[in-house]
């Protein structure tokens, strides 16, 4: 029987095929016919299109505001990652052209590139950090959601970052409270700098060089004064190892970057 001569039957089969209820041997036979006859393919396509309307007809439900914050954070992290990879490529090119142009500026570009490469690790680091600090569980999405919820539940804290080392082990939890202009850093790893060294916290804005946010003391819980403008629109924070007392902000980091991580803004 040539199915293309039986439009009624063809339409019925195409509707069942596209609905998904045509199964097993009947489905395979229909697929074979569709490969052979454009008419059959067209009928299937018509019904696939019709049924797809079902996805538009379900009752609307508002998702939690944290969902958009999560999407936006991931999109922004991806954008800064792409920008930094471009910067790293430029830096490598510049370095190849003019090897003497090195110094701290080249270090900086390589460093920012490294921060970009760490973006995926950074997400993992946020998760690790939450586990270390909050004892929370479950999968990545749920953990980020939990972190968001924690933030929501703590009204004065609007920014949080978990800084991790190259192995994605969380070492520092950073929160910012704009009401009190206070950055709070909590050491969660076992790292301890030597007596002649200091850790220095840097903001990595999307454009321009790193800005120093302060030098860390030896306490487990550290507080630094900062303005919201210092951290707003900053995708990444990083900590470098510097000579004791730190270096001026304009110098930029001179020592190795030990920890870095994305700064996440609370949903508003």
């Amino acid at each position, binding site marked *: 029987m040539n199915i293309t001569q039986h439009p009624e039957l063809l339409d019925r089969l195409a509707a069942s095929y596209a*609905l998904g209820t045509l199964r097993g041997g009947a489905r395979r036979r229909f697929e074979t016919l569709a490969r052979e006859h454009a008419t059959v393919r067209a009928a299937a396509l018509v019904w696939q299109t019709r049924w797809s*309307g079902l996805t538009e*007809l379900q*009752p609307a439900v*508002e998702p939690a505001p944290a969902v958009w914050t999560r999407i936006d954070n991931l999109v922004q992290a991806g954008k800064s990652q792409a920008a930094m990879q471009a910067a790293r490529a430029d830096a490598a090119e510049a370095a190849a052209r003019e090897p003497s142009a090195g110094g701290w500026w080249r270090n900086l570009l390589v460093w920012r590139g490294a921060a970009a490469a760490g973006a995926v690790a950074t997400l993992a680091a946020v998760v690790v950090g939450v586990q270390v600090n909050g004892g929370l569980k479950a999968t990545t999405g749920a953990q980020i959601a939990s972190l968001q919820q924690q933030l929501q539940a703590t009204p004065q804290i609007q920014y949080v970052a978990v800084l991790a080392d190259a192995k994605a082990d969380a070492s520092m939890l950073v929160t910012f409270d704009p009401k009190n202009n206070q950055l709070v850093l909590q050491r969660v790893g076992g790292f301890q700098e030597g007596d002649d060294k200091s850790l220095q916290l840097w903001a990595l804005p999307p454009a321009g060089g790193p800005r120093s946010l302060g030098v860390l003391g030896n306490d487990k819980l550290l507080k630094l004064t900062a303005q919201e403008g210092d951290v707003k629109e900053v995708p990444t924070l990083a900590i470098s190892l510097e000579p004791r007392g730190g270096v001026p902000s304009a110098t930029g980091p001179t020592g190795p970057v030990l920890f870095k991580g994305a700064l996440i803004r609370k949903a508003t």
Partner: protein
Amino acid sequence: MSSTLHPDSELMNLIDRIAEQDDSALKELYRRTSAQLFGLALRIVRHRDTAEDVLQEAFLSVWRGAGSYRGALSPPMAWLGLIVRSRALDALRKRTSDRADLMNELDDDMAQVLEGDSPNPMDTADASEQAFALHHCLGRLENKQREVVSLAYLRDMSHGELAEQLKLPLGTVKTWIRRGLEQLRSCMARYA
């Protein structure tokens, strides 16, 4: 209908801007469509946390894949709906394989759905014309027929799976779907 005021055109412009990595367009698209798409995800996976993950995944995939939209030749809401459905089905399969007790939960949920006098939903200004036609034709079905046909499509379930989950005899499910399909076919033929 003016082409500049039609919701499809507005959504298509947003998707074009997203293809150029304009994040403000993504935000606007989310504002416009997230409740509708979240409702769809929730209907398929029946679990709020999972549905939120599905919505997140879907919007990230729109962010990355908006450039392929024009080639899909679909109305924008249908294109978005198919992305969400595909992600939701992945999540549903994963959950089913992760958790053997899922079926019991679903049984309870859906038993309620089918007992209730579920109205023909549709509360969006952005739905495509093809969805309006389907809406109209679905409205002519009995609630139970409409429900079984909708679930078969949305959750990609066979007659046997539907019968098992809805605790209905296989013959009943087959009859409802066959009658539902016949009525829909003759109704939709008028919108060809």
